[in-house]
């Protein structure tokens, strides 16, 4: 547990992706089995120890400290679990600290009372970092800024294999992943997961950048709408039907309407939507159905789920992923016609001859639920991850607004010496009738390193006030901000909130009084 606790501790403070990868990789190389397997499970959110520990730890702490001192400590630290980890008397135990595997094994099947005794004994043997890490494990959610994908990538580095290979195996393996590590250590062949109903890693698209279109041959590409739902993978083996999110989480429990249908023996790629009377409902309706363990009859009726398929990975045991998209598409249509499934349709191609004509079709379409266009190379195999040059997502041109820089805040990690987070405002009429700036958003990307240096210098030279890591600046610099959409928000002083704001251009040339007004932003609110 000591090594794993040290890893979590370090991860919690490490901002960079590379730094995190290195720390996890080093740990996985050095830790013994099965500890490292349980650790990998914890980092990929696959170690379900979640206990109702909050009340329990309060009860354990009570006889060990004066209640007033506990209250003052809790107020200062701001987190109960951390407070207990810090306050627990040191050195009360006289034995080696428990290993992660011992902890996992002991908790398996223990009731609340037993868990209490176990925790007490373990706390006595661990140090403050160990107690903190144990509480994180038990209360669920490590929150050390590591995604499952990052942890698996770190594991792949141990064996020098492609992360996609681990993704592919992942759902056929179970903690503590002995077979996986034996393979990564070069001591055993790659685990054979057979043809179990497991998640296959998805193929992802690149955003279309300025100038990309000129380099693409329209004859080599097909287009289809980019639907505003969530990406899913349906894996069906007769009765056994599973539905995975794009990260491989099994979300079948929330969609009994989908998994109770008949699909045959397939692995399909598509968009999960809510459909009513043949029309796509707003994304907000779909959100009602997400992140639920169970779902009521009323939910099923009010928000009926539907999948719009666009690709086929496996057809009746036949792995199509090496085949070109055109062939996979043919097989998808063939299957669909033969199976005629309920709650599903196909994402139809959008015919076009030239990209500008396609753009014109797009501009003229009024259908709901379209987020943009997908361009897919007809010859593309189905490759895990985000391979270059095959699939592109072409989103609507962003909205832009000329704003005035108001506050800048220091960034973290590599940017910790730079003022890199910018709060910007738009003009409105103040109470005294004059113009005043009201903050409308915050952005911390969209500029080059060189521009960051210039912005940082400008902020330092134009500071009017400091509040800790934040500086207020003279209202003198115009930032052209791009954003995907804007909606009403009661949480912001301006009453509006932007979606994905980023710095589009720095308008060194523009006088601040010519920046846009709040009313213009409000006029861009959808619907």
């Amino acid at each position, binding site marked *: 547990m000591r090594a794993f606790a*040290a890893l979590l501790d*370090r991860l*919690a*403070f*490490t*901002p960079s992706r590379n*730094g995190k990868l*290195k*720390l996890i990789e*080093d740990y996985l190389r050095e830790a013994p089995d099965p500890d490292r397997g349980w650790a990998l499970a914890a980092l990929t959110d696959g170690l379900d120890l979640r206990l109702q520990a909050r009340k329990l730890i309060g009860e354990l702490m009570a006889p060990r*400290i*004066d209640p*007033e*001192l506990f209250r*003052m*400590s809790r107020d*200062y*630290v*701001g*987190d109960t679990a*951390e*407070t207990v980890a*810090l*306050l627990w008397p*040191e050195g009360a135990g006289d034995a080696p600290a428990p290993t992660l595997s011992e902890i996992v094994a002991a908790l398996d099947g223990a009731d609340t009372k037993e868990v209490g005794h176990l925790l007490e004994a373990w706390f006595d043997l661990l*140090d*403050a970092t160990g107690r903190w890490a144990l509480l994180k494990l038990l209360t669920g959610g490590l929150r050390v800024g590591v995604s499952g994908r990052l942890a698996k990538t770190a594991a792949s580095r141990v064996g020098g294999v492609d992360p996609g290979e681990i993704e592919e195996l992942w759902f056929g393996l179970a903690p503590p992943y002995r077979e996986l590590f034996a393979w990564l250590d070069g001591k055993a062949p790659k685990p054979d997961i057979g043809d179990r109903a497991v998640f296959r890693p998805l193929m992802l698209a690149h955003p279309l950048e300025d100038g990309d279109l000129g380099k693409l041959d329209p004859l080599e590409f097909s287009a289809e709408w980019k639907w505003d739902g969530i990406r899913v993978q349906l894996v069906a083996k007769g009765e056994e039907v599973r539905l995975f999110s794009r990260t491989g989480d099994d979300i079948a429990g929330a969609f009994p309407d989908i998994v109770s249908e008949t699909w045959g023996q397939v692995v399909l790629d598509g968009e999960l939507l809510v459909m009513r009377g043949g029309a796509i409902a707003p994304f907000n309706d779909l959100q009602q159905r997400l992140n639920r363990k169970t779902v009521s009859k009323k939910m099923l009726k009010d928000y009926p789920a539907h999948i719009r398929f666009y690709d086929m990975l496996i057809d009746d045991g036949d792995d199509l992923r090496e085949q070109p998209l055109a062939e996979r598409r043919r097989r998808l249509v063939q299957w669909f016609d033969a199976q005629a499934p309920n709650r599903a349709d196909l994402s139809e191609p959008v015919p076009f001859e030239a990209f500008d004509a396609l753009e014109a079709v797009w501009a003229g379409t009024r259908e709901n639920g379209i987020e943009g266009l997908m361009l897919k190379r007809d010859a593309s195999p189905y490759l895990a991850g985000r391979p270059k040059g095959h699939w592109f997502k072409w989103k609507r041109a962003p909205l832009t607004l000329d704003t005035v820089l108001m506050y800048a805040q*220091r960034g*973290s*990690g*590599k940017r*910790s*010496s730079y003022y890199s987070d910018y709060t910007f405002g738009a003009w409105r009429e103040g109470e005294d009738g004059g113009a005043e700036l009201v903050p409308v958003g915050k952005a911390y990307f969209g500029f080059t390193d060189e521009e960051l240096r210039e912005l940082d210098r400008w902020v330092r030279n134009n500071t009017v006030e400091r509040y800790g*890591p934040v500086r207020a600046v003279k209202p003198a610099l115009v930032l052209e901000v791009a954003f995907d959409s804007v909606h009403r928000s009661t949480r912001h002083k301006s009453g509006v909130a932007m979606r994905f704001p980023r710095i589009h251009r720095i308008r060194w040339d523009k006088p601040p009084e010519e920046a846009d007004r709040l009313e213009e932003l409000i006029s861009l609110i959808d619907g």
Partner: protein
Amino acid sequence: MASSSRPETWLYPDARGLYCAPGGFYVDPHRAVDRAVVTHGHGDHARPGNRAVLATPETIEIMKVRYGGEAGRELQALGYGEDIKIGDATVRFAPAGHILGSAQVVIEYDGRRVVASGDYKRRRDPTCRGFEPVTCDVFITEATFGLPVFRHEPDESEIAKLLVSVTAFPERAHLVGVYGLGKCQRLICLLREAGYDRPIYLHGALQNLCDLYQSLGIGLGALEPATGTNKKQMEGEIVMAPPGALRERWSRRLPDPVSVFASGWMRVRQRARQRGIELPLVISDHADWDELTRTIDDTQAPEIWVTHGREDALVHHIGLQGRIGRALALIGREDEDD
């Protein structure tokens, strides 16, 4: 005439600091006064411009380096354990274990003994003499880390963390934020004791005091200026700088620096996060909670006055022990960077 007047009638805080009336002096005044008794060289205790200053010889030397001609017009050195009469009061210094030259001030008057601790710690420090408890009637204690959550880890394990990280990230520099007087030199000594013998690189602001320590016989090993060395060459090296430099443009000369901060505050995660610290080290020159409470016991003082810090919890604790504890409001103390 009362045979023993209550200490608060002759030792009390006013606008300039803690004043001893029968001696006519202030302890660590925060504004210039006629006569100052200074516990140690940190800027919030030793201020420039006093007329007469009484301090340990090391503290006098530190004040000269920091303030030059402003250190005070009459500088008088007094070794640990030597008595001196000031007015009607008797004064003596006892080691405080905080930094080089740091002292507790033992004041005796009218049959009563009061000890003003200044800042102190109880654990070993290779750069200064260890704390010696003095039994007294009133003990005036600091309380920088006056909450039971503050329990400093053993120095060796914190230093080991730093060295493990240096090995794990050989292509990055480790930039350690330290207070320039005391913490810097102690950390260097601890690194040397752990077997680290590479040159340690210093921000310019740390050079003078390191030189002083070396001249007073505290070996720090090879030290190099961090400025003017090329970036590539700083990969895998340890660099010390004042805490502010971690976030300033100065740090850009280093290769992808890991920001390290050595301070008792690093015990609480949110404090490390707020500062954007990547590797927090819990190393402090102040007593942690266990040291504070143990010291209060050691002095056997029936009455404890608690100065700067989180005095509420310590006063509460003293009350639970059946002794008298009260907060002593002194202004001008800064503890954020330690």
